[in-house]
């Protein structure tokens, strides 16, 4: 089935699943796709990852009423975390729960049970002109809802485990909504796992609202099979005095395109964007980040790193916009890459647009190999070449991995990375 058929299915099913304040966006979003088509290499934002060929393929739709329980051995263990499972985009527990400060569950239910908050924020952050996002808005029939009430300091991390499990080329989507109230504190972990060798396509979208003085930590890991294609967009809006850490770790996946957009709309926001890509074989990873400094006296730090082997391709496009009113902005960006052989490729592009005159901004990109001197130094201490490489690569990755707060999850990510590097 093509995406047009998937739209027809969504149009039929959506009425029984969602209220009209959500469904009302669908037609307009789909018209956008019909009018402009999916981006090819001619569109700057998707130059190195033209999505047209991917989205215009044939896929099977997911039945939003059906799910099957996955094998638990594939899950990361974070013992104190609250867990939400989705299989092929659908929440496997169809309920809204309240636990350790979080209110969470399926967006389908939340759209009725927490109508006030969902209606206030749903599709208020997403960029409807971005084609994958438009497709999600037009056709997604499931998602995760997470909210923390104002003043609540959550006591445990909340972990979302998204599993793609199918023998066929399914097309799954999630539209997630996160709302963090004023002065709240929360930690979210999102883990994207594939237990499928099929050529699946995922198109997820998350809207993340961070109210005044809230402190939010969001860590995401992509670790799917080589045939999987995963497109994901995060739209974050930060209000006065809030702080946000976004760590985005990509280990597996045939194609991963991650858009991360942060809008700092009130003063004194603090935002950290960290990224790590470990790619080999024919993996293609593309990170697009956009930090919109729309208010004065905000700070953003961005650090993206990659280690690439074989014929892996990595793209980093980091756009920072400092609007005329955003005086006293501090925005720092850095992209560091290690190529392990001559077949791997990195395209890196900083994009700073500064319209205010009293700002501190910097950007930089490096591409290099593993340090030969350091290799020899370690070997001269008796350390084998492969262990020395592993130590150097972990050392390079540690700067990002150290940002992962939860020790058990960090251990899980480290083990996946180590396994990958050893292979």
């Amino acid at each position, binding site marked *: 089935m093509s995406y047009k058929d998937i739209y027809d299915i969504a149009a039929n099913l959506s009425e029984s699943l969602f209220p009209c304040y959500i469904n009302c966006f669908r037609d307009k979003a789909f018209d956008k796709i019909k009018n402009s088509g999916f981006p090819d290499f001619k569109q700057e934002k998707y130059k190195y990852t033209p999505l047209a060929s991917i989205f215009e393929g044939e896929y099977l739709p997911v039945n939003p009423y059906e799910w099957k329980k996955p094998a638990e051995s594939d899950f990361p263990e974070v013992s104190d975390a609250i867990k939400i499972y989705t299989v092929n985009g659908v929440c496997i527990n169809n309920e809204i729960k309240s636990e350790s400060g979080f209110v969470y569950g399926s967006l389908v239910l939340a759209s009725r049970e927490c109508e006030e908050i969902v209606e206030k924020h749903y599709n208020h952050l997403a960029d409807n002109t971005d084609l994958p996002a438009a497709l999600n808005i037009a056709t997604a029939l499931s998602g995760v809802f997470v909210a923390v009430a104002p003043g609540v300091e959550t006591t445990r991390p909340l972990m979302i485990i998204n599993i793609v499990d199918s023998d066929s080329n399914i097309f799954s989507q999630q539209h997630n909504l996160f709302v963090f109230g004023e002065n709240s504190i929360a930690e979210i972990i999102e883990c994207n796992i594939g237990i499928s060798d099929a050529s699946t396509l995922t198109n997820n979208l998350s809207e993340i609202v961070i109210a005044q003085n809230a402190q939010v930590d969001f860590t995401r890991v992509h670790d799917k099979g080589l045939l999987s294609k995963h497109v994901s967009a995060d739209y974050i809006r930060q209000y006065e005095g809030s702080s946000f850490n976004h760590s985005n770790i990509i280990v597996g996946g045939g194609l991963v395109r991650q858009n991360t957009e942060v809008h700092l709309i009130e003063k004194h926001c603090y935002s950290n964007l960290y990224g790590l890509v470990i790619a080999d074989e024919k993996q293609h990873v593309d990170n697009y980040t956009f930090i919109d400094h729309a208010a004065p006296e905000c700070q953003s730090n961005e650090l993206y790193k990659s280690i690439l082997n074989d014929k892996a391709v990595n793209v980093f496009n980091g756009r920072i916009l400092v609007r005329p009113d955003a005086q006293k902005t501090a925005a720092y960006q850095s992209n560091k890459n290690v190529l392990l052989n001559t077949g791997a490729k990195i395209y890196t592009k900083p994009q700073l647009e500064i319209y205010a005159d009293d700002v501190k901004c910097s950007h930089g990109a490096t591409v290099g190999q593993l*340090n030969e001197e350091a290799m020899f130094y370690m070997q*001269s201490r008796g350390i084998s070449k492969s262990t020395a490489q592993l130590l150097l690569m972990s050392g390079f990755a540690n700067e990002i991995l150290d940002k992962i707060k939860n020790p058990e999850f960090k251990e899980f990510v480290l083990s996946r990375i180590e396994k990958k590097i050893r292979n």
Partner: protein
Amino acid sequence: MIKITDLHANVEGKEILKGINLEVRAGEIHAIMGPNGSGKSTLASVIAGRDSFEVTQGEIEFEGKNLLEMSPEDRANAGIFLSFQYPVEIPGVSMTNFMKAAVNEQRKYKGLEPIKPAEFLKMLREKAALTGMDSTLISRPVNEGFSGGEKKRNEIFQMAILDPKLAILDETDSGLDIDALRIVSEGVNKLKSPDNALILVTHYQRLLDYIVPDFVHVLYKGKIVKSAGKELALELEEKGYDWLKDMDI
């Protein structure tokens, strides 16, 4: 312990070592001196197995093994240690992890189980005390942000942990003030035993006030041109290296 015979080596096609002969027995301390560019550091690197140097002729025998056929890590595990002239900074890798990997590779080479964490920490503390290494540096990334003196002390600290049969100290005295030189030398002297041997590569005589060699060799234009006892070092200090230019080499 080590026997070097007619060793020739090139770097980037240029011959640097032009027939070195040197034998070091257990318990001995040899100093290799000479002007800049004479090939001292090249000799140290070739023994340790740096692959940017190409050995074109000659042999190195270490305890009956053909050293030139061994990888740098196997040489280290067989008991060779090179103290670097410029110790390398390794961001993101802590001294603890670095040394644990080294100790465990050495143990694996000897057919032993990996070291127990408590035993390893005890060893780190003891060797830090022995060599005057600031123990707060142990949790930091390897050599990152270390001062010149701390880096050199760290080399001797690693030497104490790995307990080599043959240690080669490449310009360990360079960049050290007198106090640091004394501390580093004391560390080296404490590690010396009748079962191990030392090769000191140095430019100046002053290191040899603290670590007294049995033999002094002068390396010039890739060859050992003179060998004698420790008094040769004093003579070099007095006369400099200019007299070499008058020799027909």
